[in-house]
């Protein structure tokens, strides 16, 4: 198990290095950055000035090594637009994105696990079909559109929740629901299939033969085994959700990292863009490692080996 985790860690570091390179290359795709920063009305001299000021006149390799060296110690440079250190900008915005992601994951788990269990217990019934239909609907729902619909319904017509901003916890409910929608189908299907497999297993027959209560059979014996893949996929889903929160943060004007990225993209603020890509990728890599650890912690067969 330890060697397995060490191997995973080594791969994770390699992946992180690759993403570091990719995020650098990403921002050089558009050709001459100085021209796009300077804007359409800039003179030749302005562009030259900017090129020198941002070190863009150096060879690409030097720029790359500079970026790698600084990124390794958490220095992502200075934003062109905000005139602030990129690391500070991200640190300020990250709590909002993390809150949103955790709220979204929480809602997703609260919905998908009970529904998945219900569908498995009543496999083949109309309840099951209804739950599977919910999964299909969730999968087909464009998140930004759902966000707008909720704004109209819950915000304007019913007046239950604030439409946008970050003032209170209530501001996170609607975006949380929308974000949860993207994770619910996968988590629900996984819970359902895991429970179906567990419920048809020999050890559940043993549990029934022992005269255990229905609650104990479902909640203790079946769920524990069905939960192992769900927990690790949930960690990975959180990574996907953080990456996808850019759309939802923009819709709800939540000034998190996603919103920051969107602003920076429209302003050609490439140091921020490449840093956000890198940070989100690193979080994802960290979460997949966490998923492996959780897996090992939950499954005694893995823990021992």
């Amino acid at each position: 198990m330890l060697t397995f985790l060490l191997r995973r860690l080594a791969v994770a570091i390699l992946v992180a290095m690759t993403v570091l390179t990719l995020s650098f290359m990403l921002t050089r795709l558009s050709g001459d950055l100085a021209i796009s920063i300077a804007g359409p009305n800039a003179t030749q001299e302005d562009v030259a000035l900017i090129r020198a000021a941002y070190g863009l006149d150096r060879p690409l390799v030097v720029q790359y090594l500079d970026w790698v060296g600084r990124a390794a110690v958490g220095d992502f440079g200075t934003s062109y637009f905000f005139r602030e250190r990129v690391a500070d900008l991200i640190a300020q915005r990250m709590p909002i994105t993390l809150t949103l992601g955790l709220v979204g994951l929480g809602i997703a788990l609260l919905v998908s696990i009970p529904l998945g269990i219900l569908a498995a217990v009543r496999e083949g019934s109309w309840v099951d079909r209804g739950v599977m239909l919910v999964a299909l609907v969730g999968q087909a729902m464009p998140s930004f559109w759902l966000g707008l619909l909720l704004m109209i319904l819950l915000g304007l017509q019913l007046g239950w929740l604030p439409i946008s901003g970050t003032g209170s916890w209530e501001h996170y409910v609607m975006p949380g629901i929308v974000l949860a929608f993207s994770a619910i189908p996968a988590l629900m299907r996984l819970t359902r299939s895991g429970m179906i497999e567990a419920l048809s297993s020999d050890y559940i027959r043993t549990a029934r033969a022992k005269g255990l209560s229905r609650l104990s059979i479902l909640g203790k014996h079946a769920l524990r085994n069905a939960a192992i893949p769900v927990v690790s996929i949930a960690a990975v889903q959180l990574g996907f959700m953080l990456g996808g929160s850019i759309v939802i943060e923009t819709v709800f004007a939540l000034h998190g990292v996603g919103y920051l990225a969107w602003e920076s993209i429209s302003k050609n603020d490439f140091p921020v863009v490449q840093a956000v890509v890198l940070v989100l990728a690193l979080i994802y890599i960290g979460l997949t490692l966490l998923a492996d650890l959780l897996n090992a912690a939950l499954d005694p067969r893995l823990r021992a080996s």
Partner: protein
Amino acid sequence: MSLLEVRGLRVTFGGRTAAVRGASLSVEKGETHCLVGESGCGKSVTALAVMNLLARGARREAEALSFAGQDLRHLSDREMSRLRGDRMAMIFQEPMTSLNPAYTIGSQMTEVLRRHRGAPRARAAERAAELLARVGITAPGMRLGQYPHQLSGGLRQRVMIAMALMCDPELLVADEPTTALDVTVQAQILRLLAGLQRDLGLGILLITHDLGIVARVADRVSVMYAGEVVESAPTAQLFAAPRHPYTRGLLRCVPVPGKVRRDEPLGSIPGVVPRIPPGFRGCAFRDRCPHAAPACAEAVPRQEAGPGHEFLCTLPPDWALRERAA
């Protein structure tokens, strides 16, 4: 009053296939009753039906189904679960998969006592260790903290047996408990069951397809064919004077040292257990039976061939003797 009384048990799946068609048997206190037959004849379904552990979609009916005088037919799921694991316990064929991989042996054993007797954790753990020792597991204290995957198949089956004994049950239903095990382990488990039965006065319903096991442990044998009990007798009586052609066929399939000569071919029964359509009449064995007669397509009488020896056939009780004399 018998400990377990089953009469006219019928089990159907989805209304189409009848897995058990009017099976009857009884288990007395402190008796080992073996239920034998080929695979697919409805032995396991009978056992599961007794415990009310049938899969969803299965339908159970019976003229009588009682345990220690208590009618099991109309018990609710909750009432039945109060009996299971407490007064009637069951062990299964697959020790490798019958224990929950996510919990320790100790946790899985103690929960039985905690559920049925409300025993405190420490008391339940004590009892579990005691029983592990009783089924011949060394260092029981350590085993309690282990997970199923750390144990061999034989050990796991011993754990299953110990777990079944947690509440001192009166009846143990054992569904092919040794089939998945090595031959040497098989013998140990059988000896263990026999010893437990003697010491604890346990009634055992042992399901097996292995006549060698039957000969060694059974007090009484019921032979099952296509969902019916076709013959039932005290063990010695059945082996000495089987009446049903199917029982005779089964016995001929087993080599007996000293009786079977070296080059003599072992017997076999041609064909397989048929699927019985609903509304089937007559003897289900008639297509494979060497003595089949037109009368076999009619209702088959249940006949007595001696004290406690019943069989289901159109042939007269003394047909075998007459055949030998002829």
